[in-house]
């Protein structure tokens, strides 16, 4: 088996960290508004795991695709996207059906939120670097 690329590892860790932070925030909000139940936690866990695993699989696919020729790479990516979508559908459905629907759906968008926050922290890091 091919070793996981350093870039993919780094980005997946970044996404996983943000997903965990945002999940903790969501759990706190549920606690504060008095709607917290164990099914909120389980829905969140299954969905957050699906989101992180989806990102990791995407990274692995990209890592493998860049070594192929253009046509094969595009096909591999399309196939991977379909399969990952099915995986998310299955895990999301389990979360919605058996646990809290809101807690099971929101974490699927946490990686997108993490990417949206990225420029803020990159800018800060850049400024700090320039000042040194």
């Amino acid at each position, binding site marked *: 088996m091919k070793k996981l690329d350093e870039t993919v590892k780094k980005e997946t860790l970044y996404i996983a960290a943000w997903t965990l932070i945002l999940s903790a925030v969501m759990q706190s909000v549920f606690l504060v508004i008095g709607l917290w139940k164990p099914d909120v936690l389980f829905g969140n866990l299954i969905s957050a795991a699906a989101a992180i695993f989806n990102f990791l699989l*995407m990274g692995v696919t990209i890592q493998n695709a860049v070594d192929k020729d253009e046509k094969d790479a*595009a096909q591999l*990516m*399309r196939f991977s996207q379909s399969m990952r979508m099915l995986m998310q559908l299955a895990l999301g459905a389990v979360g919605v059906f058996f646990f809290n629907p809101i807690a099971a759906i929101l974490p699927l968008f946490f990686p997108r939120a993490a990417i949206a926050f990225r420029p803020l922290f990159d800018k800060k890091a850049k400024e700090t670097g320039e000042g040194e």
Partner: protein
Amino acid sequence: MELAIGIILGCCALGAGMAMIAGIGPGIGEGNAVAKACEAIGRQPESRGAVTTTMLMGCAVAETTGLYALVIAILLIFLAPGRLVNILVETMNTLG
């Protein structure tokens, strides 16, 4: 009553299927992005790390549109039928 419930279930399934049409777009987009990235890495192999990072983020953003469709489909299949049938039954009971 059974006919109305059947129509509700059918429409929910049809809606979920139609929502998933949006799932095709990200697949095509990601495929094209990766194909172009392969081309770029072929021209400049030293930029592999930077290209991979940018592409990972780009693909994740592109996939969000597919996720919106996925969420709509999940809600239409697993939540909407029950709620809509309940509303129908309540309305029928109110009307007598």
